[in-house]
């Protein structure tokens, strides 16, 4: 079967084949790699072939200058994550036939990562974030005597199986919306690993971890878009782990942040009226005494008023609001 592959090429010394044509595919401010050129190849492969088969075939038989990073070819090593048709995937796990669009498949290094050559991005931002969350157990004292182990329950480890499945391929970070605009964001992979250790009963530094992860760049800088859940090839569901960390952090008392204020204000509004009070949500989330941030929201507020989009000044309750109050009381917990 014939497949057409359009490959994003980048050469640090600026040498390209004549057939490589310039392209400015994603002219976004977050494009962290220099302009690439796109070279089109045709390969003859069986119907079941994956994208990596095509790239290896090109490198072996057509153009040995093509740089590709890969190793296991079995979705285990995590080396071959790249952009395929504008989203991050493992090239070894992506069937060509499923990714052929308008007669071709486009592969390139993800623009949110720095690039080294062709399809090989620089993984430094990824590993820096990974290390920043201290992805190792910090021992509880006393340590077990020599030749003995820490004993933990099966149930507590089952809770962490999802995060342990991470193969550090970076597919989640490559498609992370928050990372795209905020290079300081720890990102989905690092935070999923953060939960893997914060949620481990053998770890002695959980509270210190939660304090650290609650700082700017941490759990509250995730935009909750579920891209990481969709792109992860191993079912780690990083966003779900970030949400668990948020709950752990709030329960541990790390509440002096806009994220917690936002949730509390949201809950109060729904509990008391059955619906969201948009008028008070923003100032309550920002914090009434955070004058600088309050002032920053003023121009937008004026724009909304001018367009006649100001929420009603007198916030109406829904009929039967007592039922909602009863639900809050019965469930209990923080929002009661």
């Amino acid at each position, binding site marked *: 079967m014939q497949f057409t592959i359009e490959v994003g090429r980048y050469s640090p010394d600026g040498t390209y084949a004549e057939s490589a044509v310039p392209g400015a595919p994603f002219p976004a401010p977050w494009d962290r790699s220099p302009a690439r050129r796109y070279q089109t190849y045709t390969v003859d492969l069986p119907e079941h072939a994956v994208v990596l088969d095509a790239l290896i075939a090109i490198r072996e038989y057509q153009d040995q200058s093509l740089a590709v990073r890969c190793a296991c070819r079995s979705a285990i090593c995590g080396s071959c994550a790249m952009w395929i048709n504008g989203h991050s995937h493992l090239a070894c796990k992506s069937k060509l036939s499923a990714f052929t669009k308008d007669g071709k498949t486009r592969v390139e290094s993800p623009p949110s990562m720095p690039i080294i050559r062709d399809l090989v991005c620089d993984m430094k931002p990824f590993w820096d974030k990974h290390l920043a969350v201290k992805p190792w157990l910090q021992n509880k004292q006393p340590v077990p005597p020599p030749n003995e182990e820490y004993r933990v329950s099966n149930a507590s480890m089952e809770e962490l199986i999802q995060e342990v499945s991470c193969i550090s391929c970076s597919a989640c970070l490559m498609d992370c919306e928050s990372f795209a605009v905020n290079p300081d964001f720890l990102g989905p992979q690092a935070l999923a690993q953060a939960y893997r250790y914060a949620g481990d009963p053998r770890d002695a530094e959980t509270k210190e971890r939660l304090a650290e992860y609650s700082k700017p760049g941490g759990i509250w800088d995730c935009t909750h878009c*579920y891209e990481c859940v969709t792109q992860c090839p191993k079912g780690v569901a990083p966003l779900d782990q970030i949400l668990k960390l948020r709950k752990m952090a709030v329960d541990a008392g790390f509440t002096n942040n806009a994220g917690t204020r936002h*949730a509390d204000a949201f809950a109060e509004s729904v509990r008391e009226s059955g619906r969201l009070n948009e008028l008070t949500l923003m100032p309550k989330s920002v914090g009434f005494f955070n004058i600088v941030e309050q002032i920053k929201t003023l121009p937008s507020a004026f724009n909304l008023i001018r367009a006649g989009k100001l929420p009603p000044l007198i916030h109406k309750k829904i009929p039967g609001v007592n039922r909602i109050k009863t639900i809050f009381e019965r469930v209990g917990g923080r929002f009661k």
Partner: protein
Amino acid sequence: MKVAFYPGCVSKGACPELYVSAKAIAEPLGLELKELTEAPCTGAGVLSEQNPQLGDALNGLTLAMAESEGADLMTICSTCQGVLSNHNYHLKQDKERMDRANATLADQGFQYGGTTKVKHLLWMLFEDIGIDRVTAAIKRKLTGLKIAPFYGCYILRPEESLGLKERPERKTYLERLIALLGAEPVEYRGATKCCGFPMLTFNREKALAMGGNHIVEAKEKGADLLVTPCPLCHLNLDGQQPDAARVLKKDIGVPIFHLPQLLGLAFGMDPSELRLDHHVVPTKGALEKVELKV
């Protein structure tokens, strides 16, 4: 066709133009809207993340209200759709969660039996109302307009609870609708990305840059306007657009239409009837392309 209509808080708050236009297009589409006036806010995921049991009970109540109407629940907000779908999926799958939610709702007049289908208007157009009926309602083709779709995360992800694994075509409805109404859909990466709204209160500048970048990309691909089925996206993309332009140091000026507004225009309604004059970013330029005034 009778539907249990769940307008969501924002259409009754900061985006009244969405509520008005959704009501206006019901008749030409043959929809009988039975509004769930006593249904609570979904919690937008914010409440569920800190207290999943609360999310189950609040949304279980809404699902039970639709069930007692004997009709599918129709949303007009991607976020409402995502949260209701998510809780519906888990309540149906997990008997323990369902029993606990119903125990919380005991003697409040509603118990959820697990039969409600939650469907955004966008899905209903293709799956229930039908293309033929939509086509028959078109009185004014939007020929000449280039329209960029903007879905909103929660109508696309996570795929399991939204039923996108069984119905992957739901990821293409906006483009198909734009073409059906006679306009040209703009293909750009931002269509399925995040508008930044969930971060607006935590990290304002980054949230504005996020949404702004997508509009800039659409504009560079020739879009006259964006259309979205999510009023929260609308709040960030329209309501905050002047601020986003300041953060990005770029001139943007691309109007954002709600899905029912676009339908209403194609159904021959007057722009002011659809409250297209109540936007932060003026809709005038885009409307003039189809010889309309606001």
